[in-house]
């Protein structure tokens, strides 16, 4: 899974810590999310999408192999 969290975060001029505070997560969780090594819960994914004024499809990109 790839994410565009970093890109959207930069657009909103937010640091990883700012985003973490907004969504009630630790900074390391945001780090792993941006690296694509952590699959968040639907609730956290939605919180991030709301915080970045985006939607899930824009933020989280699934390739064919990810859904197998």
């Amino acid at each position, binding site marked *: 899974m790839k994410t565009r969290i970093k890109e959207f975060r930069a657009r909103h001029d937010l640091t990883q810590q700012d985003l973490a505070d907004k969504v009630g997560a630790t900074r*390391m969780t945001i780090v792993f999310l941006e690296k694509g090594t952590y*699959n968040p819960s639907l609730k956290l994914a939605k919180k991030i999408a709301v915080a970045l004024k985006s939607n899930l499809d824009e933020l989280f990109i699934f390739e064919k192999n990810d859904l197998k």
Partner: protein
Amino acid sequence: MKKDYTVTIIAGILLIFLGIFFQVSDLARGMIPLIFMNAGTILIVIAVISHNRYGAGITQDERTRALGARALSNSWLLTFVLVNVLFWIDYTKVLTLSASHILGILLFTMTLSAGIIQSILKKRGIINED
């Protein structure tokens, strides 16, 4: 300082004073006062370290909770295997193990393995891969 840390430090100080009180008043003898004082000290140290590391920020979220749960379940599995090994060692009389030996080994294994597995998972970051 966050309220949680303040409460932990107060609890630690109370435990230390309770330990000193037991020691001075002779209400409890032997190891009991020491256990109270050690527990109090550990609480204070944990609160201070957590305060320095996280400050007023968030200390836990879904990832860290899932990580802790995964580490504990792996540690439980490891301990289960170890219990089986210890049983057969004792049953076949390869070694003579007392109850305190076994309890000590289990206590050590569970604590250490949970900590090690948790730190490995923290570094990897992946905890919910297929």
